[in-house]
């Protein structure tokens, strides 16, 4: 929102004492965020009002004219190209020696004729966008006066962040901002200059069908409006505030809205029969002022005239009621609508107007009548003959009261962290328009209605008012008092970090972050269909992931052209009915290295559980996973005999769609389960002091059989002297697979005798024979 300091000054007593450039730093830390402070009217100097005395054709140019201009103290010859030059016009003349946008004006020949200065357009003066001709000042403008002395061209315009005002309906107009500035600088806010006439006329026919959505409707009919020209000072202000000047009646509604924050509407009274406020019928349509036809629902609040839609309440009017050239009588609307009703309609129609932006903030219904009287006062200033054609009709079914709050002083001090004296509290609150009674242990506070609609309702709200005006920069910094009771802790975050750190620093893997949903394009390319919980209102990238490996695959595909072989991981959420945390590790390997990569990922997972949980994970063959995996290569991961995850490889069809030469090996671990695992206790292991013997056996198995099968058999062979069993070598020979294993045998108590050793050997060979396994000598 753009704020003009010239307008603020009108509302503050002794405003000349305030430095309106620096005060905004204070405003930022007391009230709301200021996005910029812009100085207006300093891009030119030496511009005076001047009357055109003579207009002559230029001998060599059809476009140019040679003017004789009266600038008060002298008559100048000026060559001018504007089409609107005429004798008697009062314009703005920049004299020789003056500056505009850093250019100095000198005597300059234009097609052979000297020009002693320049007549300016509104755009050149920075007070309008009009560059079609020179500016035409009002006929009663005195000649030869510095234009900046006559009109409020010099101004300080302040941009305030709208987002920081969402909770402050009172700050959506200059008057509310002026109240804050007055309070911040210790000055007095001046009362508004309002119409006080109470016309003894018939009331307008106004009916509110839905008082829960229309809190108040003030309407009045005004006649004899003959002057519809906006005074220049107001045009300049509207331009600075980012609005376009149209005509007096429209401009006045906008002016009052910018001044008081109350949106208003002026209808051409020739159209108005009776006014009704109520919801639309589902499916009806209505064409708004901008010429667009809009579909309505029964949640859209409408103003109706003679039973027909007339305006979308609080959002936008229609074409038929627009103020036109010959309008000389209006019906003024100054109403208050319920915030969320207006908000919903504005959003649904995609029509966020200045009016709807304000209504969304919960305006004070009491402002509606004040604003109407302000409008009437300003209109009368420009139209002294204006007359009332109706009473000021005020339909106000539920009156907005003032909130009453009791603030316990003890509570205030506790909240602020120190004691603040009563006088300061009273002064701050009074300056903001609150009424305060100082009772011994508390303050009894009446909140003005413009702060009562939603903003200030509980003691903590009052504490905010006191604290911010006291100044947060004046607060002492007080450390928290130490509490030495043992605190609670949850291990999830630390566990997560521990795992990430381990994977990154031990196995040189890279952590990535990916999205909670699958990318539609990516899945389509791979011909994978995921059916899962969906984001509403989106058609692309709208399915939440149920397999973190797919996200890793997507991240891998991003890097596939930049890296040969690499490994990535993430701990992230997947959704399968509930949200769960999973860890996914992916190794990208050249297809020739699939075997190496597969063994690596097994080792990583094993090592992770062993190092961080002291758990020896087991791997089991898995029957089935998703069809986009090569399920022949799927292994389940068992921790303490419970399935906690799996290792697998994306199938050739999927991997070839990304890159024919790569394989994508991944491990997926249920991280919630991982966090729940207790670390196994470390127990001291005794080392034998006696010599041990190693015995190597090469066992012949069938080619193509899994080692796992052999291992399961070997596990059944038990002997008290086995200290360790290792896999030494595998050798493929024809259709056999020769597996060399090594037993380390010994005892903690003694050296084994040769009988004991022979006994072991015999028993083992016998065991192998029983299980149909041969030995390679």
């Amino acid at each position, binding site marked *: 929102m753009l704020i003009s300091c010239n307008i603020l000054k009108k509302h503050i007593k002794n405003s000349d004492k305030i430095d309106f450039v620096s005060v905004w730093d204070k405003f930022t830390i*007391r009230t709301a965020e200021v996005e910029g402070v812009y100085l207006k009217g300093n891009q030119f100097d030496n511009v005076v009002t001047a009357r055109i005395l003579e207009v002559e054709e230029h001998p060599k140019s059809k476009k140019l004219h040679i003017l004789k201009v009266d600038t008060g103290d002298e008559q100048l010859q000026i060559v001018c190209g504007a089409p609107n030059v005429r004798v008697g016009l009062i314009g703005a003349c920049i004299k020789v020696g003056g500056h505009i946008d850093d250019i100095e004006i000198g005597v300059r020949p234009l097609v052979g004729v000297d020009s002693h200065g320049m007549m300016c357009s509104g755009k050149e003066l920075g007070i309008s966008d009009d560059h079609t001709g020179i500016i035409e000042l009002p006929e009663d403008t005195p000649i030869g006066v510095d234009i900046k002395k006559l009109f409020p061209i010099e101004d300080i315009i302040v941009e305030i962040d709208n987002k920081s005002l969402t909770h402050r309906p009172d700050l959506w107009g200059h008057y509310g901002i002026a109240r804050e500035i007055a309070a911040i600088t210790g000055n007095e806010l001046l009362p508004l200059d309002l119409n006080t006439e109470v016309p003894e006329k018939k009331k307008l026919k106004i009916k509110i069908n839905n008082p829960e959505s229309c809190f108040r409707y003030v309407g009045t009919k005004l006649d004899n409006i003959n002057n519809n020209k906006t005074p220049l000072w107001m045009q300049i202000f509207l331009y600075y505030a980012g609005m376009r000047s149209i005509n007096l009646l429209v401009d006045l509604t906008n002016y009052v809205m910018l001044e008081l924050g109350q949106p208003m509407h002026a209808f051409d009274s020739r159209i108005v029969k009776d006014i009704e406020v109520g919801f639309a019928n589902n499916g009806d349509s209505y064409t708004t002022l901008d010429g667009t036809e809009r579909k309505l629902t029964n949640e859209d609040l409408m103003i109706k005239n003679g039973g027909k839609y007339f305006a979308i309440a609080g959002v936008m009017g229609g074409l038929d009621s627009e103020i036109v050239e010959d309008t000389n009588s209006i019906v003024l609307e100054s109403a208050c609508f319920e915030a969320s009703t207006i*908000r919903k309609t504005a959003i649904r129609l995609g029509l966020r107007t200045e009016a709807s932006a304000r209504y969304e903030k919960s305006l004070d219904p009491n402002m509606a009548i004040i604003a109407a009287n302000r409008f009437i006062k300003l209109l009368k200033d420009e139209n002294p003959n204006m007359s009332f054609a109706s009473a000021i009709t005020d339909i106000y079914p539920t009156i907005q009261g003032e909130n009453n709050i009791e603030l316990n002083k003890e509570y205030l001090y506790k909240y602020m*962290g120190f004691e603040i004296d009563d006088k300061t509290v009273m002064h701050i609150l009074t300056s903001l328009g609150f009424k305060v009674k100082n009772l011994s242990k508390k303050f009894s506070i009446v909140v003005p209605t413009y702060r009562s609609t939603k903003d200030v309702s509980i003691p903590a709200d009052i504490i905010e008012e006191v604290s911010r005006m006291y100044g947060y920069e004046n607060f002492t910094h007080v450390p928290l008092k130490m509490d030495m009771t043992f605190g609670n802790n949850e291990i999830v975050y630390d566990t997560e970090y521990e795992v990430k750190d381990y994977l990154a620093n031990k196995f040189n893997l*890279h*952590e990535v*972050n990916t999205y909670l949903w699958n990318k539609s394009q990516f899945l389509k390319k791979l011909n994978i269909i995921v059916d899962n919980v*969906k984001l509403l209102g989106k058609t692309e990238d709208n399915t939440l992931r149920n397999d973190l490996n797919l996200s890793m695959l997507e991240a891998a595909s991003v890097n596939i052209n930049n*890296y040969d072989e690499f*490994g990535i991981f993430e701990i992230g*959420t997947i959704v399968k009915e509930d949200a769960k945390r999973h860890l996914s590790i992916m190794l990208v390997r050249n297809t020739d290295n699939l075997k190496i990569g597969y063994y690596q990922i097994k080792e990583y997972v094993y090592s992770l559980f062993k190092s961080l949980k002291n758990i020896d994970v087991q791997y089991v063959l898995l029957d089935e996973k998703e069809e986009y995996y090569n399920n022949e290569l799927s292994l389940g991961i068992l921790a303490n005999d419970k399935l906690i995850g799996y290792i697998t490889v994306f199938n050739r069809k999927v991997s070839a769609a990304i890159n024919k030469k790569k394989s994508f090996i991944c491990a997926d671990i249920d991280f919630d389960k991982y966090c729940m695992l207790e670390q196994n206790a470390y127990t001291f292991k005794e080392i034998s002091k006696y010599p041990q013997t190693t015995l190597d056996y090469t066992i012949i198995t069938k080619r193509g059989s899994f080692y796992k099968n052999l291992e399961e058999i070997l596990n059944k062979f038990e002997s008290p002297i086995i200290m360790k069993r290792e896999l030494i070598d595998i050798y493929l020979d024809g259709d056999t697979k020769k597996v060399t294993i090594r037993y380390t045998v010994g005892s903690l108590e003694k050296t084994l005798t040769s009988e004991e050793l022979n006994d072991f050997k015999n028993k083992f060979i016998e065991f192998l024979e029983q299980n149909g396994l041969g030995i390679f000598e």
Partner: protein
Amino acid sequence: MQEKLKDLVARAAEDAKSIKTEADYLNIKSKYLGKKSELAEYMAQIKFMSNDDKKLFGPLFNMIKTEFETLFSDKLEEAENSNEKLKFDPTLPCSNTHGSLHPVTIVGREVTNILKTMGFMIMSGPEMDSEYYNFEALNIPKTHPARDMQDTYWLDNGMLLRTQTSSVQNRAMRKYGAPLKVCVPGRCFRNEDLDASHENTFFQLEGMVIDKNISISNLIYTMEGMLKEVFKKDIKVRLRPGFFPFTEPGFELDCSCTICDGVGCPTCKGSGWIELCPCGMIHPRVLEEGGIDSTKYSGFAFGLGLTRLAMMKYKINDIRVLNSGDLRYLEDFNVR
């Protein structure tokens, strides 16, 4: 005799230069110190010498012997060292493999470690959450703009993706009660179009302190202390009024610009301040909803943008890099 010895020493010094291998060393050692060496011959003559000569030559022979031993072994070591050098090039670049942690992980770890020293516990919460925890329990009314589809990812199972880690506030209060010092790092989601400074998926860290007599003054101290540790700089903080339904009063916290130290630069748009972290005193209704008596207890909460912090710390100029998975950007964060 003295002349002969001088000559011997000179010859030995010359021969020593030719030691390149262990074999050379042994040959030369036996030539000059062996039983049949010249020196041994001279030493054998000592018993025939006069007493004066014995006193002179005895120590001299020993000295020469020691000198030879050191000389030869030094030469051998020298040769061995230079042999090693010839076998490889010590100036070749070493292999450069390393893993990496995500920048947000690193920053999150730093911040939580700091908060731990202040006695905060770390909690986690679900990314898919209910309307109750994300809005209702935080005093965000049904009509509040934040609940719109434009801002929130609603799901077809009636849940939503949490828009803020504040969704854990109520859980923390219900689970642990007061007093409480807790922080919650985690992913949040907002329905935003992506550009260099907007992401729909980002990390926040929620902090919350509840006890008897917790004041605005405590909040200012804690935030300033924490941020000094985070930035390792003597930064200043300032509070501005800010509005969040779950705080009262609510603040926007600015810290003095970490680039220019508050003088004014392009990063802080000349103001000397950077908007960093919304915070505030916990709204009494939020406390009550969490089962905590707001007449006895008060507290403050803050929401630190971890993603933003990581970007500031590592001067990352495009937020989209962080969720891109592109290792060209990410692989260098190889710090513990």
